[in-house]
């Protein structure tokens, strides 16, 4: 290491001031000395060492061999956390039952009533149509076409009813209403086409 003006630094260091030790310093040293009073220290040095009880190692070994989950289940904190979670969950379910379920049940009952009313409203006409189709030649193309049309629209309607019963209400109710309207129209139309041709037309009085 090369230095220039080293003497200047040395002189400056020599002139650095000395500071007075705080009064507390000796008191601290004295206090420390007092804690190691020879008589007390001598007696402390002679205090006995006790033998660890038998069986401790066995318990340590068993505890170390426990899987983490078992260890967690043994801790009171884990049980408290689990109890808290279960209580919270029960509270949440209770609240959900109180606030939502009766409403949902009421809505479902309303939907079922609506579906039943719509289906039943043209049941007589449908039964008459089916009886009429039975009476006609089964392999006639117009009969087969009429049956297929009715079957297709019935299947679509039944699917919508299943969707509604499963609680998927978004749009299904409206579609069912439309579907039932079309089905009802089809039943009347087919009845008119297939069944009324055999009967003499009513003449106005």
């Amino acid at each position, binding site marked *: 290491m090369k230095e220039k003006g080293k003497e200047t630094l040395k002189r400056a260091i020599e002139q650095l001031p000395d500071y007075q030790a705080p009064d507390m310093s000796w008191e601290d040293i004295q206090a420390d000395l007092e804690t190691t009073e020879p008589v007390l220290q001598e007696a402390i040095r*002679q*205090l*006995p060492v006790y033998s*660890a009880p038998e069986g*401790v190692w066995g318990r340590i*070994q068993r505890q170390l061999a426990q899987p983490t989950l078992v260890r967690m289940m043994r801790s009171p904190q884990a049980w408290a956390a689990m109890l808290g979670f279960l209580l919270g969950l029960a509270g949440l379910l209770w609240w959900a039952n109180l606030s939502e379920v009766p409403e949902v049940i009421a809505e479902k009952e309303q939907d079922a009533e609506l579906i039943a009313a719509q289906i039943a409203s043209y049941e007589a006409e449908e039964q008459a149509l089916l009886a009429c189709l039975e009476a006609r030649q089964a392999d006639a193309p117009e009969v087969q076409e009429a049956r297929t049309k009715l079957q297709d629209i019935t299947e679509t309607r039944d699917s919508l009813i299943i969707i509604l019963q499963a609680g998927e209400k978004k749009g299904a109710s409206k579609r069912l209403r439309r579907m039932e309207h079309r089905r009802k129209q089809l039943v009347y139309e087919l009845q008119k086409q297939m069944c009324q041709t055999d009967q003499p037309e009513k003449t106005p009085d």
Partner: protein
Amino acid sequence: MSNTEQSSSYQINPAEKELVEACLREDRKAQKQLFDLYKDAMYTLCYRITSDTELAQDALQEGFVGVFRGMKNFRKESSLGAWIKTIMVRTAYKKIRKESRFQSLDEEVAEQLIDWGSYIDVSYLEQAIQALPPGYRTVFVMIEVEGYSHKEVAATMGISVGTSKSQLFYAKKHLQKKLKALGVRS
């Protein structure tokens, strides 16, 4: 140098290093070897702090389980014994913490002289230590018997350095009074 405030340049001896590494691999034989090496010293420490053989036994067990599970946290900045001792002190103190009461130091009382005389009977000293209130006893054992500093005691027990000093003073006053009552001190 105090118990845990050792130099960061502390060199762990090869045998100790080997034992630590085996314990890190969860080698049960090595763990047993370590337990056997320190069990009596640590049981004695736990008993001095708790003043109860059952609590001391529980602390010994919990402490060693903590030592083996926390071995990866041993940074080799102090001796293995000092590190184990710190864990034991914390574990034992936890057992009696609820019963510990700390008293602030009265200036006038602090001026009083504690005279130990010329002789103390060791067997009675043990009794007198066990008779100390839990908070005083822990501070006394840690500082006078185990050689911890007030700073280390404060950190371990979660108290201030001033509280540690005042508890030591009261512990000594109690001890002196007890020894005098037993008539074993000249």
